C-alpha cells in the first residue's frame, strides 16, 4: 500500500472541497435567485466539466496556466515556477473538474427553501447577507454536506485531470488512482488490488455518510 499516495490524495481532496464550497456558495446563490436573462449561460458554463473529458479539461488548465498565457506568467511571477506538474496545479485542475458537483446540490437546496421565509427574514429587518447566513444556509445544511462530500469523493477518485496537469511525481502529484494505474502497468496486481479496495471503501463510506445525513435533514416545510 502506497501510504504517501493516500496521504496526498486525502490532502488534495480536502483542500479541493474546502476551496469549492467557498467558491460555490456565492455562485449557487446567484444561480438560484438571479432573474437575469443570461443566467442559462452561467448554468451551462458551470455544468461544462460534467460533460468534458478530463483530459480535455486538464489540457485547457495546462494551456491557461502555461508560460505563454498571461495567467501563467502571473502565476510564475508570484510563485517562481509554472503550475504544471505541481501540487497547486492538481488543486486548480480538481477545483474546475468538481465545480458542478459543488454548485448543483447547493442550488437545489436553495431552491427548495420557501421564498416566504426569505421575505419574512427581510421584513424582520435582516439584510440579504444576514438572511443568507441566518436562514438560507442553516436550511441548506444537507445541500452543503452533499456538496462537500461529492466534491471530496469526486476528487478522491479522479484520474484524467491529475495525469494531464500533474503527471506522476511521487509525493507531489502521484495520487491513489495514478498509483493503481502504475501498479497495473507494472503487472503488480496484488498491490493494485489493495489500493483499489482502499479507494472503494473510502468512497463508499463518504457516500453512505451523505445519504445518512440527508435522511435527517430539515424538510422544506415540516408541517405542510
Amino acid at each position, binding site marked *: 500500500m502506497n501510504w504517501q499516495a493516500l496521504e496526498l490524495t486525502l490532502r488534495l481532496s480536502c483542500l479541493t472541497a474546502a476551496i469549492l464550497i467557498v467558491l460555490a456558495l456565492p455562485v449557487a446563490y446567484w444561480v438560484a435567485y438571479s432573474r437575469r436573462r443570461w443566467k442559462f449561460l452561467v448554468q451551462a458554463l458551470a455544468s461544462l466539466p460534467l460533460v468534458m473529458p478530463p483530459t480535455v479539461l486538464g489540457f485547457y488548465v495546462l494551456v491557461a496556466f502555461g508560460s505563454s498565457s498571461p495567467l501563467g506568467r502571473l502565476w510564475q511571477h508570484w510563485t517562481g515556477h509554472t503550475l504544471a506538474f505541481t501540487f497547486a496545479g492538481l488543486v486548480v485542475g480538481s477545483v474546475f473538474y468538481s465545480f458542478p458537483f459543488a454548485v448543483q446540490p447547493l442550488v437545489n437546496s436553495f431552491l427548495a427553501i*420557501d421564498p*416566504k*421565509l426569505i*421575505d*419574512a*427574514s*427581510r*421584513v*424582520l*429587518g*435582516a*439584510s440579504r*447577507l*444576514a438572511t443568507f447566513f*441566518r*436562514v438560507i444556509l*442553516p*436550511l441548506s445544511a444537507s445541500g452543503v454536506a452533499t456538496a462537500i462530500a461529492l466534491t471530496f469523493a469526486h476528487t478522491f477518485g479522479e484520474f484524467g485531470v491529475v495525469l494531464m496537469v500533474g503527471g506522476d511525481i511521487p509525493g507531489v502529484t502521484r495520487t491513489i488512482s495514478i498509483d493503481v494505474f502504475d501498479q497495473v502497468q507494472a503487472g503488480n496486481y496484488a498491490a493494485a488490488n489493495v489500493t483499489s479496495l482502499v479507494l472503494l471503501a473510502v468512497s463508499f463510506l463518504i457516500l453512505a455518510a451523505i445519504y445518512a445525513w440527508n435522511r435527517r435533514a*430539515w*424538510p422544506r*416545510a*415540516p*408541517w*405542510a
Partner: protein
Amino acid sequence: MGVREGRTLSSADDERETARNEILLEAAIRKRYAGSPGSSFSLDVRFAVPAGFTILFGRSGAGKTTTLEAIAGLVKPDAGKILLEERLVYDSASRVNVDVSHRGVGYVFQDSALFPHLTVERNIRYGLRGVPEIERKKRVGEILESFRIGALALRLPRVISAGERQRVALARSLVTRPDILLLDEPLAALDAPAKSRIVEDLRAWNRVRRIPILYVTHSREEVFALGERVLVIERGRIVAEGLPQDVLEAPREETVAQLAGFENIFDARIAALHEEAGTMTCLLNPGAIEIEAPLARVETGAAVRVGIRAGDVLLATEPPRGLSARNVIEGTIEAIEERDFRVLARVNCGATFAVLLTPAARRSLGLAAGQRVWLIVKTHSCHLLRPAAQD
C-alpha cells in the same frame, strides 16, 4: 447587520412610544404586470389607513397581496408614494425606496412562514438584532405573555398547532414594534373560535400601540366577523370603502354586491326612463325580462348590471293581484334544495333567479321542481350595479 432606525430602545424611546400619536398609512401604488395579452394585470390604488383594523377585501387575483407587498417593500411599484405617518418609504417622483429591512413594517403570511430550524423563542428574537440583551429579554417575555405562547418558547414550529404558529408569527412581527402591521389572510386556515381568540388578543395589543393593521381577506364571513372599516378591491382598483354595513347598504360594485349576498346579478340594458314615476325599465340580457328599477342617472340604452338578493324575491303559486310591487315575472322551478334551514329555489324565467325561502313556506306552498310560479320583486329591491371595469 444594522439596527433599524428608531428601533434601539431606551427609556427616552419608551416615552416617545407612549406619547406618540396614532399612525396613518397613506399609499398610492401603481404596478403593471405585463403578461401575454389579456393576462396583464394593473394595480392602481390610493388609500389611507388609520390606526386600528382595516380590512382589504377582494376575490383572489384582485391585487390584495401585491398591495401588501408594495407597502412592505417586497415588490417595487412602477409609480406612487407610500407614507407611514411622516416617514416617506417609497416615492417614485423623488426616487425614495426604503429597503424592506428598514421600513418598520410587520408582515404576517398566510402560512406563518416561521423559520423551521429555530425554536419559537428564537423565531421571535429574530428581528431584535441590535437591541440590547436586557431590553430584548423584556420584550420577548412581554410578547410571549400577550399572545399566550410562553409555554411554547422552546418548541420547534413543526410540533405546535397551526393556530399557535400564527400566534408566534404575529408575536414575531409585533415584537419589533412595527409602524404598521400587514396581515395576508393570516387566519384563513383556522377554525372560527381560534380565529376570534387571536383577533381579540391582537385588538387588546393594539389598544396600547395604536398602529394601522391592514387585514387582507377574500372571505365574506371574516369581513362581517371583524366588522371593521373595509376597503373593497376589484381588478386592481379600490371600488368602495367604509364600514361594512355602509358599503353594503347601497352596493354599486359587483364585488361589493357579492359581499352583500346578491345571489342574482344580471347584465341589463336601460330600455326606458320614467322620470315622473321615479323608475326606469331595464331589459335583462338573457331572457329579455323587463324589470322596473329605481330611477338612476343613466342614459337610455346604457349597459348596466342589476343585483337582486335571493331573500328579496317573493314567490307565488298563482298570478298575484293588487300588489304594490312593480315586477311580477312568470317562471318554472328548475331545482329546489334545502340546506341549513334555508331553501334555495332556482326559477327559470328566461334568466335563472335564485330565491331564498323558509322550509315552512316551501311546505305550505308545496313547492317542487317543474312547478309554475310567479316571482315578485319590489322596485327598490333592484339594485343598479356599476359594471366591473373592462380593461
